[in-house]
């Protein structure tokens, strides 16, 4: 064991240059995930502190002010529910990257006499170490971002720092959650490597995803329309639960839609770059969805919150509500866009690292670097644009029962904001350009 540990350390140091980029990307991802999660929880914390439950609880008669305060807390819960899944997905993606490209090292460790259990332990320890470094960096980023967050004004006044600073135990709980996500998803990736210790990726025709996913999503949609819409004053937890179910349903149907689109795209693709992009999408729709799904969700959240209008505001608090909905939606979108862009960047980087030999072979055979970049950009742009269009359409349809006529100005603003967020995520592909350049260097 000592020899194996020593070898692990030597390989770590020797392979440092080779693994620097994925290592940095993994740490950055953990940091972004932690900071985003802390900001979400801090926001929720602030709204709850600001709007304490009235002495008699939510039962019985509520003053207008208390009812509105309760609405703010409900909305904060909804936003947090929407953000948690993409944030945790980012953590899982980062963990996969942290242990990607370890095949050779694993093989060397086995040859040195390490058992499979020891190798697993060392690799997970490394993923956990990266997660801890990333999460602690994330705490620093969160603290540094607080003054900026404190400038946001809700309910007619900006946040106070003391509203936003989380108690130590909550901060540590968030750090621990990120590390746990890293270790769990790292272990699930390693299980696949352990089955094939040589790391030979024998890609076969991808399995079709089941149509059942579509039925699940339709059922969730029906539940929303049938359960929530008729309720006059739905309970906060009911909304959160049904919304959570909706998000899971969207995550179930998303990869299926991506797969179908990828297959159709592959059949119709006129150029090499489009063909490659479509085949990659159809081959691994779940991973494509992981990259773009978060943004789809963000568009849905922003759509719901920014298009909801306050009818005939009478009190000052009600007037604030209209502005606050817009601000809240924007904050949610910004956070999810940052998280989505990081996810996309990391997924793309991991793919280049996984396929660097094929990239080199393509370059040797005379494929220009530009063609490789174009194929990658398309690989993100196609599902991204589709996701945004579908999500926006989904929102517009679902909002119909709530509003008889949507404000066209708000709709345009919603669509433009969504497009800008999409552009930011697309730009994250640029982060792995240097990896493509390295992988496709012929000499």
């Amino acid at each position, binding site marked *: 064991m000592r020899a194996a540990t020593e070898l692990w350390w030597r390989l770590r140091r020797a392979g440092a240059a080779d693994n620097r980029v994925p290592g940095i990307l993994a740490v950055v991802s953990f940091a972004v995930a932690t900071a985003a999660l802390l900001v979400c929880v801090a926001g929720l914390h602030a709204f709850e502190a600001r709007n304490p439950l009235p002495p008699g609880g939510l039962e019985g008669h509520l003053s207008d002010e208390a009812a509105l305060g309760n609405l703010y807390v409900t909305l904060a819960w909804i936003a947090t529910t929407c953000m948690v899944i993409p944030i945790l997905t980012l953590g899982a993606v980062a963990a996969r990257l942290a242990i990607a490209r370890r095949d050779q090292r694993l093989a060397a460790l086995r040859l040195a006499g390490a058992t499979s259990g020891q190798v697993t332990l060392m690799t997970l320890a490394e993923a956990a170490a990266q997660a801890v470094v990333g999460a602690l960096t994330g705490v620093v980023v969160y603290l540094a971002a607080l003054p900026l967050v404190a400038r946001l004004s809700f309910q007619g006044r900006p946040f106070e720092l003391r509203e936003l600073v989380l108690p130590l135990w909550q901060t540590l709980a968030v750090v621990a959650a990120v590390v746990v996500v890293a270790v769990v998803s790292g272990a699930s990736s390693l299980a696949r490597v352990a089955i094939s210790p040589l790391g030979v990726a024998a890609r076969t025709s991808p399995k079709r995803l089941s149509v059942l996913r579509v039925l699940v999503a339709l059922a969730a949609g029906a539940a929303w329309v049938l359960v929530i819409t008729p309720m006059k004053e739905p309970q906060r937890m009911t909304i959160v639960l049904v919304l959570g179910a909706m998000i899971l349903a969207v995550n179930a149907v998303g990869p299926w839609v991506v797969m179908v689109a990828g297959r159709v795209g592959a059949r119709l693709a006129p150029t090499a770059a489009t063909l490659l992009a479509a085949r990659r999408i159809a*081959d691994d729709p779940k991973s494509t969805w992981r990259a773009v799904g978060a943004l789809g969700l963000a568009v849905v959240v922003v759509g719901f919150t920014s298009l909801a209008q306050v009818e005939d505001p009478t009190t000052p608090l009600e007037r604030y509500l209209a502005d606050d909905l817009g601000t809240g939606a924007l904050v949610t979108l910004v956070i999810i866009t940052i998280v989505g862009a990081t996810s996309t960047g990391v997924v793309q980087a991991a793919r280049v690292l996984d396929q660097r*030999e094929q990239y080199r072979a393509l370059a*040797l*055979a*005379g494929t220009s670097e530009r063609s490789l970049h174009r194929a990658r950009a398309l690989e993100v742009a196609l599902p991204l644009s589709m996701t945004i269009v579908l999500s926006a359409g989904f929102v517009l349809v679902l909002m119909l029962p709530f509003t008889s006529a949507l404000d066209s100005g708000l709709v345009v603003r919603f669509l433009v904001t969504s497009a800008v967020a999409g552009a930011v995520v697309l730009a994250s592909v640029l982060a792995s350009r240097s990896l493509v350049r390295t992988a496709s260097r012929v000499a």
Partner: protein
Amino acid sequence: MSYYDPARTPPGAPERPASPTTAPPVSPTVGFTGVQASSRPARAASPDPTRDLIARDLVMTYGRSGAPAGPPALGGVDLTIRAGESLAVMGPSGSGKTTLLHVLAGILRPTGGQVLWRGRDIARMSDRERTVLRREDFGFVFQQGMLLPELPAIENVALPLMLGGVRRSEATARAATLFHPLGLSGLEKRRPGELSGGQAQRVAIARALVARPGVVFADEPTGALDQTTSAEVMHHLTQLAAHTGASLVVVTHDENVARWCHGVVRVRDGRIAAADADADDHVAAGPVQAVTAVAR
């Protein structure tokens, strides 16, 4: 007429009457030991600078600028690969044979000397020009197919044409004509992960030849295969190259692989130590001067 017609020899390609090209297709289930050196195919007569690949006094030194240079990887190599001919480059590990292949293929720029292809010096071309050259004039076969795992076999073969701007329908049609002669009928839609090593390598051969390159470079094309499969792959590689008129440069450790080629050069310490079969006392059937290999 199909894109690939085994009965047709393209204009200008040398006749290859000797046994490798006329040998019956080899089935993987049939034992095969390769063609004897004494029956190596004959070569065409006179050199032609407008169609041959000519290397003159190639020198290649690795190392950072400013740092003291180590021994050169190539120490002055002269070589002519005639149009339509096949040449095996042999030598121990570290002898410089792969460097030679990379310099000839325009992957590496030599420190000194010339590589003339159709009258132009590849060594003086820009990166961009060499990329286009590799895409349009050269084909590559690597030790392990290096096929893209997410593309079915037929799309892997059609890819070079599509990258060169050929319409997808035409690229796919041209790719499809190569499957039957390579014994790959029915495997068009398989992914690389669903093919055997020999099948994947034959798909790689189809990909290397689909754009009708002037020269095919193969770096240990059978390095990952057993002897029987290896003979089968070399049979297809040499035959298809001959029928499309492409020259073939094969870097190999394996004498059995080298025997499929018109000529052999042996590289040692960055220099050509021997041309043809001198080193193992076999005399090729063709005129020796056809491959000019000078040990300096």
